[in-house]
């Protein structure tokens, strides 16, 4: 009897789905993207994009397909703003940056994507190396400092993220923290460090360490930290949580995670950022960025989108909402952040950070991975 009920329940759902496929697309009014099965199920959300479940979108004029390694929570509002301004219909596939890069490589010439919006330059570099990105116009590239774009003009940074040491304020005073990343190899830090060797930003930092200090010094640093028995975390946010909980006292992360934790858990969240000094590799500034694919059906729409990301409005959004550094002149970072010019970051081009292979090798050899 109940088995029949369950089948009935499934049938009902199926009917809903089919009904939804036949729905005319609702009017666009911004709001969250998504297929609109809800229309049929009486979900009553009228602010969704028009994707009916059954029709794949044909790439071409008047629309733009973006593969975004940055999450919808962070960049969704920008997509909507751009749609409103330009009248271009944006379809976004959200996912992990590296997985989307692998997806684009697997799709080959049949990739539906026009534009790739990445968390880190590594993934963009990998696509550039495979010849999958188109050159960007000079005026677009010139909006950001040379440090934050590809030398061949294949991708451009859209927001900056500084590497910092996050520390527990109940356990430590800022004055007790070293000014160099090498200070943490001291035995006094044993059992007090958290890191995330699988994280893309961390790996970019290790690559920078190899470029700036040489292979042996980089190895020595990794072995020194390993000797201090660090806590291994899957990502930046886990490290910040662990530091806040006092599980470890310090962690190597990007600067904006602690701001998000404070926003969600209140001012008394006991963790803050410490910036390293004197061009220390640990004070590296990375960038999230974007590039146009060689398979783009609609490169002009993609260029317009990049122009929008580098507009003052979008840059202000990054500053206020994601706590990242705007990369365009004249837009100030969020309150509580030192200006980009004051961070004593090392002199290095992000495009020099392409040797991820070597970094992985080193992380493996030292037992960090």
């Amino acid at each position, binding site marked *: 009897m109940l088995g029949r009920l369950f089948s009935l*329940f499934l049938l009902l759902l199926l009917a809903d789905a089919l009904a939804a496929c036949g729905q005319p697309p609702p009017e666009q009014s911004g709001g969250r993207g998504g297929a609109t099965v*809800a229309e049929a199920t009486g979900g009553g959300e009228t602010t*969704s994009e028009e*994707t009916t*479940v059954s029709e*794949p979108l044909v790439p071409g004029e008047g629309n733009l397909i973006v593969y975004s390694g940055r999450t919808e929570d962070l960049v969704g509002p920008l997509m909507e703003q751009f749609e409103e301004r330009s009248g271009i219909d944006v379809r976004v596939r*959200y996912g992990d940056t*590296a997985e989307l890069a692998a997806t684009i490589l697997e799709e*080959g010439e049949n990739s539906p994507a026009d534009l790739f919006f990445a968390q880190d330059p590594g993934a963009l570099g990998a696509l550039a190396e495979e010849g999958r990105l188109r050159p960007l116009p000079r005026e677009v590239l010139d909006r950001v400092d040379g440090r934050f774009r590809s030398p061949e003009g294949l991708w451009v940074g859209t927001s900056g993220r500084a590497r910092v040491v996050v520390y527990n304020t109940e356990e430590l005073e800022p004055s007790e923290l070293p000014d160099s990343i090498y200070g943490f190899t001291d035995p006094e830090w044993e059992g007090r460090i958290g890191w995330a060797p*699988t994280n893309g930003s961390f790996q970019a930092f290790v690559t920078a360490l190899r470029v700036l200090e040489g292979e042996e010094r980089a190895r020595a640093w990794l072995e020194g930290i390993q000797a201090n028995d660090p806590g291994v975390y899957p990502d930046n946010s886990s490290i910040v949580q662990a530091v806040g909980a006092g599980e470890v006292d310090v962690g190597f992360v990007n600067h904006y995670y602690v701001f998000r934790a404070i926003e969600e858990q209140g001012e008394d969240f006991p963790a803050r950022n410490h910036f390293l000094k004197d061009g220390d590799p640990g004070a590296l500034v990375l960038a999230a960025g974007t590039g146009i694919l060689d398979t783009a059906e609609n490169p002009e729409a993609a260029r317009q989108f990049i122009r929008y990301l580098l507009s003052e409005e979008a840059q202000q959004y990054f500053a206020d909402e994601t706590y990242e550094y705007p990369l365009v002149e004249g837009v100030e970072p969020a309150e509580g952040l030192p200006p980009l010019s004051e961070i004593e970051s090392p002199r290095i081009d992000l495009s020099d950070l392409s040797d991820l292979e070597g970094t992985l090798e080193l992380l493996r050899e030292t037992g960090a991975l």
Partner: protein
Amino acid sequence: MSAGRATAERKAAGRPPPPVVLLPALLVAAAMLLPPAYLAIRAFERGPGEVAEVLLDPETLAVLGRSALLAGVVTAAAVAVAVPLAWLTVRTDLPGRRTWAVLAALPLVIPSYVGGFVLVSALGPRGMLQGALEPLGVERLPEIYGFPGAALALTLFTYPYVLLTARSALRGVDPALEEASRNLGRGPWETFFRVTLPQMRPGIAAGAILVALYTLSDFGVVSLLQYDTFSREIYIQYRSAFDRTPAAVLGLMLVALAAAVLALEGRTRGRAAYHRSSAGASRPPAVVRLGRWRWPALLFCGAVVTLALAAPVGVLLFWLVRGLVGGESLQPLWVAAANSVVAASLAAAATTLGALPVAALSARHPGVMAASLERLAYLGYALPGIALALSLVFFGANYAPALYQTLAMLIFAYAVHFMPQAVGATRSALLQIKPSVEEAAHGLGRGRVMTLATVSVPLAAPGILAGAALVFLTTLKELPATLLLSPTGFETLATRIWSATGDAFFARAAAPALLLIAISALPMYLLTIRERVR
């Protein structure tokens, strides 16, 4: 069963399968071959040198050992937790046994990326539990990271596979056998171990194999709890090197490991009969009265449910409330929820349909052919989701561009991934039907297919539905294939949870995670309280 009849039935079973069963089974098997085929293409594209390099790396061997150890321990622990739970909730007068059955099965729907996270925030060295114990002078709890934490988390979130299959097996056990054993003077314990448990074996094995393979494939728990397995290595390769060759070699090794696990399971399959042997109508077995044992039994159920369900739900509620107090606003989730339910329902239907010929072949025409096809259906289950998703990206974009990133393609991906769940449940249900019933229908002039459709499937309906429900529930939380293969802009509850946790917005992750558990509760309820179909 008399010797003469046994031979007759064995002969019937050995008959070559009719093409109407064989051909669809072959088709399903071909679909199952796509992920391994893709891995082979990627692994060997730069010659055997690269493959050898990964294979000969001593670290690879260590990872292999760690993965096998974890799978073994988690499987044993899951069986040890689930079999007593199944027996208590099916056969005894445990107070509130139906409620316990539903609650104990629900941890199945908690995504491992949420469960692992919750476990860390609750039981970490300075987690919530430590906070509660602080007044008692507890400064730090012992490390849960590494093997113990990973094994604990995976056991808590996978034992329901065994619970579900063991419960339906237990329902199918003929009480006449147990009564005969008791009449021969065996005590209740001996009867349980010598009669009931062996009869439940195919059901338990069907669940156990899912637990073992799931453990090999899981990435969420092992990455959060810092234990390095094949799956984690594969993800590291895909995520940081953009070099798909080493990942593919590791993936193939994982497939080989899965094949070894399956061979091991195959060795333990005897030639026993699992269907009723007596004439007459089947009837429900007598209820075991627990008496004084009621309290330890309740304590056991309570402890499991607290750890595996109440703790995660509690932590999610805490995040939600903390976020709301902090001024977070609730986002509407209707679209995501509706998409989740539709995709999961379609996946359940498609997977069950595909599983039927494979299971029928394996249950009714055992042999080398049936065994290999059935094993094939299981192989992809041990692969981490990302490897499976990328294999379908590769074949879809390049060989079926019209279907690529459509709902149909997504459902296909789910079916390839979750096929073993439906095959296992369907196979053990078919095994509990007496072949002579089918023979009778056939002898009365019904064709093989008609017999299957009108006699076997209705009789096996509870098991088949259990498989469908299992697919429905696991599809709800599937992530990698959903992200890469769904129609662009198609969001589900799982993608919403992922999006929020990725940016450390725990409050935003809590609402869709709680809704996912709530949506799962209804099918789980129907699945667990369904009485035997008579």
